[in-house]
């Protein structure tokens, strides 16, 4: 059973000034709760639907892909719930959520961002979507970083040698940061999720944060894979970036364990 709206604390709204247009965007915590409830319900139902195929969707996705998947699901419901936003139709596009709330941004999106192929199908044009001129919001998700002695504690407390998909990690949480492939992200919705015991280990979004970032200061230097390596470049929030996002919770699950732990790691609840 997923949470109702009373299961979440309302904190600060998501608010920022739109790129190019200068339009002020404000999204209330109550609206964000609606998105979280839909996304969490979807994540739970999906587990059941795939189990009917004898397929553990989250185990198969693996920890490596799961965070990205949860970010995508959240972004999709965000675009459905909040007028003036669409998901970026290009797989490598940025940001994830395009702000088309102004007439000029919407026209640009409709007229420039797709190519029509010979068979009449519209395909997204990367050069207009990575990045999108009028900006929007990136949606990133994390289960957090564990304490350094988590393996010893797991062994002692649960008889397990490592985390696995489906095992709640909140008791081992040490910090929260967000990762990206580039430092261009200026407007970030950060999601914190964990596996929910009551729902058979289904991942559930437990907190939503927001921050406007200064790319040169709030992201660490990009680490690039060696020549010929298939490793992609990556970066994470710098200390100042982490401080900004922890200072700005939008929605937090009302649950004593999560409230206490998130306060302990610095989320301003």
């Amino acid at each position, binding site marked *: 059973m997923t949470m109702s709206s009373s299961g979440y604390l309302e904190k600060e709204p998501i608010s920022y000034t739109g790129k190019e247009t200068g339009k002020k965007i404000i999204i209330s915590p109550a609206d964000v709760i609606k998105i979280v409830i*839909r996304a969490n*319900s*979807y994540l739970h*139902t*999906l587990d059941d*639907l*795939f189990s*009917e*195929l*004898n*397929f553990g*969707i989250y185990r*198969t*996705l693996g920890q*490596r*892909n799961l965070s*990205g*998947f949860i970010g*995508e*699901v959240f972004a*999709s*419901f965000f675009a*459905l719930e909040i007028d003036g936003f669409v998901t970026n*139709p290009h*797989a490598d596009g940025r940001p994830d959520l395009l702000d088309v709330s102004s007439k000029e941004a919407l026209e640009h999106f409709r007229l420039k961002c797709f*190519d029509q*192929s010979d*068979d009449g*199908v519209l*395909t*997204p*044009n990367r050069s207009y979507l990575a990045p999108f001129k009028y900006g929007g919001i990136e949606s990133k998700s994390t289960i957090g970083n564990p304490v350094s002695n988590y393996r010893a504690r797991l062994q002692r407390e649960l008889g397990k040698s490592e985390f696995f998909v489906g095992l709640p990690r909140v008791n081992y949480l040490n910090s929260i940061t967000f990762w990206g492939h580039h430092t261009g992200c200026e407007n970030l919705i950060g999601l914190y999720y964990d596996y929910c015991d009551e729902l058979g280990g289904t991942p559930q979004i437990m907190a939503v944060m927001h921050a406007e970032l200064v790319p040169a200061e709030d992201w660490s230097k990009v680490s690039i894979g*060696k020549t*010929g*390596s*298939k*490793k992609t470049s990556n970066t994470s929030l710098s200390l100042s970036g982490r401080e900004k996002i922890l200072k700005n919770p939008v929605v937090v699950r009302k649950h004593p364990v999560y409230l206490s732990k998130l306060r302990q790691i610095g989320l301003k609840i």
Partner: protein
Amino acid sequence: MKEIDRSPIVLADGFVLEVEFIAQSVERVNNKFRQLKLKTKKMALNVFEVIDFRMISGLIGEALVSDMSDNHKGLERNPNIDGYPDLLNASKPKYRLDIERWKAGDLKAFIKYPYGGIEIKNTFGTKKAKTNLAQGQTRLGKINSKLDWKAHHRYTNNLLALFSDFIDGCPQIVAVMFSDSLSESDWKEKQNPRENSTMTSFSVIEQSGWEKLRSGMRLCRDDPRYLSFFGLEASR
């Protein structure tokens, strides 16, 4: 699905798998995927629009392995996730006894199961260079004419090779091929990932392997576009 060749699959020990059984299994899997699309679309988000494309390919193979093992008493799903082949030949009492014994104590025996079986691999085809494809878009016409299956081992043989495409935003198996004459030379040299990479090593099918599989085609979607991809004629 249209039966292109009714010749059953016959393993070295005489185990026979009829094409009709495979066709029924493919239909059930395709139906399950349509249901997944419909049910998730009812929740406003078709899961195949958000799930990682590479994962969908694995999911199709897994779903067919599950369905075939659930519906054929001579086939059992390999209990070792790193095991070969995917479907174990469990057609003889001795095989079944050993499977139970190894399941209880020695999962390593399934890494290269001695009584053979059937390996299942899926491909969506490799996108042509400079082609744009959105997630969930039909790929036919935008993929190379040679289909590429990937395997972890160059000894992969007895391969039931699936070709899938997106039909109305839903992944569907559109063709099934089989070969029991693949050898190491039908797989390219292994691509080994670099240190620290999480990618696993794999080999891609060679032209010779592709030709063996194409000539062992058993089923194809009864749709002129897919039949003509394989140089076949539509039903009249």
